């Protein structure tokens, strides 16, 4: 058992935190969000220099070969500082799925460019009416002489508006609800027939709804093998869900600390608010939730690290569900408590607290809400018991 970070990991956390605290101090956030798509394009190169963009990729693709621990550290720090950026979309989702599903040639062509900051990606998987179920893919890709013809829609594609290329999960066979027959395609954002409806999200980010009307893509657009897209998609979404849990834990700690600061300084009835036991106990509950959430994130991150390269077993999936359920549920209540502790100040836009809560809410409706993950967990738990029996 070793719960310490390596020296490199500690340095990585420090440099990340320093950059975020300098460049993304909360006072600057409103200005950043006013930029087109809510993100400072000029900073993308800084992200690359800090090693963020190449961190998870293997060295043979000019990556830094970082483990899930590095991603966790980065996401936690981003959570604390409420960074909104295409990082998750490009690196964890886009780069992640290229690394999982792409051919050698595709990986060599794309991953170095992601790592250097030249290429931004987005992953289009969710569809209206599909809930959080990854098998609910209706967008069709029909094989023809020139490659494939794509027809259908995607919703809430994070940051596709700034992406150079979009990876689309489409159905080359089978029906919505089936794992088989899902294929992945790499397409240009300005492909003919692709219409994008872009909007800002509640948490200050950007997303788009995409409409594919007879979008012709060449055969080489296929990422990996036809019909084999589901497993890599599932793996990448699971890893991204873990990344969001780490971000949520960063958010939770920040709320806990800021609430503590507030209760220690604000006075009413001639006393610090923190002297009222009714509030003390509630801040203790918040603190305990941070600790327990942190533990579940470590649990799944370590399991992910050991699993590298192997298919995801049910045990690992269960840990993903456990974290996404519990952290989601607790982050929500920590966010609500944080607002309540601050009284009317907690409702104000000039304090981070409400913005943390919006981010938590968005995290909870990305890759499955707590209810969804509790159900998945329950199913996996029962399956496991039946297998043993």
């Amino acid at each position, binding site marked *: 058992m070793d719960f310490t970070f390596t020296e490199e990991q500690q340095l990585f956390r420090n440099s990340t935190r320093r950059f975020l605290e300098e460049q993304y101090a909360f006072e600057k956030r409103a200005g950043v969000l006013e930029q087109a798509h809510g993100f400072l394009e000029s900073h993308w190169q800084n992200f690359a220099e800090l090693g963020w963009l190449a961190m998870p990729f293997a060295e043979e693709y000019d990556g830094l070969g970082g483990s899930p621990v590095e991603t966790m550290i980065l996401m936690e720090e981003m959570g604390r500082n409420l960074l909104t950026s295409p990082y998750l979309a490009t690196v964890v989702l886009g780069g992640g799925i290229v690394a999982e599903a792409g051919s050698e040639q595709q990986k060599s062509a794309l991953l170095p460019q992601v790592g250097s900051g030249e290429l931004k990606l987005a992953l289009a998987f969710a569809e209206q009416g599909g809930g959080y179920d990854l098998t609910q893919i209706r967008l069709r890709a029909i094989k023809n002489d020139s490659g494939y013809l794509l027809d259908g829609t995607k919703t809430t594609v994070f940051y596709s508006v700034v992406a150079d290329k979009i990876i689309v999960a489409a159905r080359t066979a089978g029906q919505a609800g089936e794992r088989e027959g899902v294929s992945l395609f790499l397409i240009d954002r300005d492909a003919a027939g692709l219409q994008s409806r872009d909007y800002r999200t509640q948490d200050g980010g950007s997303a788009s709804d995409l409409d594919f009307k007879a979008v012709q893509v060449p055969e080489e657009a296929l990422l990996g093998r036809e019909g084999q897209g589901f497993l890599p998609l599932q793996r990448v979404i699971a890893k991204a869900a873990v990344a969001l849990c780490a971000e949520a834990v960063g958010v939770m700690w920040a709320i806990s600390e800021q609430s503590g600061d507030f209760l220690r300084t604000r006075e009413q009835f001639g006393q610090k608010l923190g002297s009222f036991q009714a509030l003390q106990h509630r801040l203790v509950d918040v603190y305990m939730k941070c600790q327990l959430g942190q533990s579940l994130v470590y649990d799944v991150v370590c399991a992910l690290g050991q699993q590298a390269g192997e298919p995801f077993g049910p045990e690992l999936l269960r840990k993903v569900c456990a974290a996404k359920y519990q952290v989601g549920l607790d982050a929500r209540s920590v966010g609500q408590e944080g607002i309540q502790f601050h009284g009317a100040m907690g*409702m104000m*836009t000039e304090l981070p607290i409400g913005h943390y809560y919006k981010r938590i*809410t968005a995290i909870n409706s990305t890759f499955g809400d707590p209810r969804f993950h509790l159900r998945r967990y329950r199913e996996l738990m029962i399956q496991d018991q039946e297998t043993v029996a």
Partner: protein
Amino acid sequence: MDMKFSVEAEAFRAEVCDFINDNLPDDIRHKVAQEEMILPREMMVRWHKILGKKGWSCPSWPKDQGGAGWSDEQHYLFEREIALSDAPRPIPYGVVMLAPCLLEFGTQAQQEKFLPGILSGDELWCQGFSEPNAGSDLASLQCRAVAEGDSYIINGSKTWTSEAHIADGMFGLFRTDSSGRKQQGITFLMIDMKTPGISVTPLMTFEGTHEVNQVFFDNVRVPFANRIGEENQGWAIAKYLLGLERFGTAEVGRSLASLGRLKKLAAALSVGEGCLRDDPDFMNEVARVEIALRALEVTEQRFLFGPGGSDAMGAEASMLKIRGTEIQQDILELTHQALGYAGQRGQDSGSVLQIAGITPEKAAMAHYNFRKTSIYAGSNEIQKTIIAKAVLGL
């Protein structure tokens, strides 16, 4: 024991329903159905005047002042039907708060001067109680009013003042003496918002609504004639005012309407081959909140119509506010959650998306905005302290 309303009460309910159906403008109903609590002034006033023609705009006032002269049952049913049909809440500050204080503590001259504008809906008020350092501990307020000639000169500020930017007048509590206990030395004044020296700075809530403001006073002159009650006796009036609301604090009717929308939404939201309503985990939560709401509804009815009637209700009323806001928050949060990814759309998405009449970005805003309800009007923590002390003797 019998939980049915009388035949007369039911007939009255039908009359209210008919009236609302025939007279509530669609644009207003639509806004309220999107859970917008604060309406544009024009809409508030338009609805107020529609009710006014029927004599229902200020129903709780004495009949000779323009009130409706209703029984408790009638008041209850009226508020409930208004809420169930997505008609606006009554204009809170003038009609519900200031007017009863004027009637109880004001002079004849004050009543004659201020009540007609409230009754007609042409004059809107705001409530200047809270200050940056006086929230839960309201009595520690510091905004000073110093007597000079026939007036007070006010300096300082009030904050979180809802609707100050659209109000014609403010009633508020001001410090006229700091020598004794903090509850002494507070004076209740009415201020014309156009008086020189007043400036109103908007404060935005985190989901992007402008409803509260900070109001600054720089040598603002308020005539003695605008003081309700005696100098330094304002605290008693404030306490009277804060204890006023009997009908509707629990917002049961509003929550029933919101819950109805949530159930419709669950049936309309397709998920795979079915709809969200097929999801037992989600529907368990809807069922749970419906049960909680029924418990609250009956509790409110017991408190209002139990032995001694609504006059017997004391600090128990605090629990209606606590549970009422919690349930409201739960319903609006579930509604937002039901939308899944679509619920992430921001306000500026120019969304064409509407599911069962619900616009995702409005649902998100309602979820966020209603976090305020457990903070204002006496935070839920303060309400619990009231119950602990006054009901449980702790």
